């Protein structure tokens, strides 16, 4: 591809919109995962007692529930990403490919 061609793609409205959408989606989900995971790690390091509390009077601790929720959250976030990427990002990407690939 020539420099002029690259330049024209990078200024194409569909491409600009694609990049914006992608950045927003990837950025927010990455942030959510990092905050959740390192929040959990810091909780373990600084306040392990919170996680050791009984969940509802029984032996099962709050930490056990939080651990299971972390697993479910990881899966849910990848699911959300896939859903959004398939629904919103891919169609936009197709437009960019069709209009810019030649």
């Amino acid at each position, binding site marked *: 591809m020539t420099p002029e061609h690259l330049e024209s*793609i990078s200024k194409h409205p569909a*491409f600009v919109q694609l990049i914006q959408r992608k950045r927003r989606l*990837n950025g927010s989900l990455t942030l959510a995962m990092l905050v959740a*995971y390192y929040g959990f*790690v810091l909780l373990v390091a600084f306040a392990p007692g919170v996680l*050791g509390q009984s969940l509802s009077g029984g032996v099962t*601790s709050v930490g056990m529930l939080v*651990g299971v929720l972390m697993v479910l959250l990881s899966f849910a976030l*990848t699911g959300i990403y896939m859903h959004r990427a398939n629904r919103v990002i891919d169609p936009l990407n197709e437009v960019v490919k069709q209009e810019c690939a030649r």
Partner: protein
Amino acid sequence: MNWTAISMFLVFVGFTLLVTRWAALRTRSASDFYTAGGGLTGMQNGLAIAGDMISAASFLGISAMMFMNGYDGLLYALGVLAGWPIILFLIAERLRNLGKYTFADVVSYRLAQAPVRLTSAFGTLAVALMYLVAQMVGAGKLIELLFGISYLYAVMLVGVLMVLYVTFGGMLATTWVQIIKAVMLLSGTTFMAFMVLRHFGFSTEAMFASAVAVHVKGQAIMAPGALLSNPVDAISLGLGMMFGTAGLPHILMRFFTVSDAKEARKSVFYATGFIGYFYLLLIVIGFGAIVMVGTEPSYRDASGAIIGGGNMVAVHLAQAVGGNLFLGFISAVAFATILAVVAGLALSGASAVSHDLYACVVRKGQASEQEEMRVSRLATLGIGLFAVLLGLLFESQNIAFLSGLVLAVAASVNFPVLLLSMFWKGLTTRGAVGGSLAGLVSAIVLVVLGPAVWVNVLHNERALFPYSNPALFSMSLAFLAAWAFSVTDSSERAREERGRYLAQFIRSMTGIGAAGASKH
């Protein structure tokens, strides 16, 4: 000799050799060899990735950690899992759009081929070999115990089968062996967890209550213990596990086996689901074992220790819930797991030699596909021999530090440069090489000076570096070095490299010009 286990294992080996033969007939081009022709579906690749992560070490090791310390085992599992969403959001699709066979393709996309590929190949080989040695030694001991065959034969058997799968069947066989094993391991652990839950009347509260009642640590097993008690170590371990996974060459290579970015995305979605599901089952298995294995005298020797060592609790639990037949099945699965993981490691090491070093550096892209594949097969053989030799050499060494070192090196040598090459226009060849080397040297030095080697292996009184997980420091240093060496680079080459970023960026975001699946 455990004949049930041996016969089940022989059935597995026979079947995988048939798969290898089938794959060999379909492996004609270099693309077939390195990436199974790039035609796997997201589901297949997701299972294979999950298979790479749910290794024998995590199946036996994490259940053993839960058996000993309860909750801490779960912390370990969560660290590995939490890396996957990040891999998906940050690197999976860009990797697929930019690369062809190895992650060095991506790092060297707009940089000078020879120096970048040399350092990447070095990073790949360091990780693959250390990982292989850890697996070989673990495998030898496990197989000795489960099957009653000698350590020497066990290690040689693993080496020979690994070389057979990779040299003849390439990535196609390596992937299918991994998929078959992942399905076997997931079904086996599902059955075990189901039987444990049935034992406790399908009440996790009843299971946890019995575990707390019989465990020496009592209620403490339901809360975080010593593993992450130090904040610096906690964050460092978290970083190492999260980004170490994103720097493992045999995992990164799997992203090139699917047809496009969309399938790469799907792979991670499925892989995260399978890995998460597996770790949830491990909670049941680990805590169930505290009751069903821990209180059963027949699983302990005269001194009261678990027969075969702590890592055997999951195997004993298999016997407890399913009798000798199921014990044989789980033993065979454990062996299969090791084989599948080492095959992937050998393939990634061999591709670094044949694709990065031979085809791109020595022959400067002039080698024919046939030559490249021949070198790759020779490299597999060499790596196999080397791994068996090291496995025998390290038989009675304390190599527990190796698994930590592997992740620290992967997180510090491969990951920072890979991430920067995709996200930062300013990265230059000098920065990439400097960053990798800084990460490599600091990771190794800090592990050696830390408690795992300085105290446990070299028997010094106190560690010179107080933390057992160096990733926080070595990874930061790698990023810092890559940045500093890049911004101070005012050469003509660096200017051109920055100028080529736009083309790379457009391809990485849209997939325009990305390598497709081979058609046949």
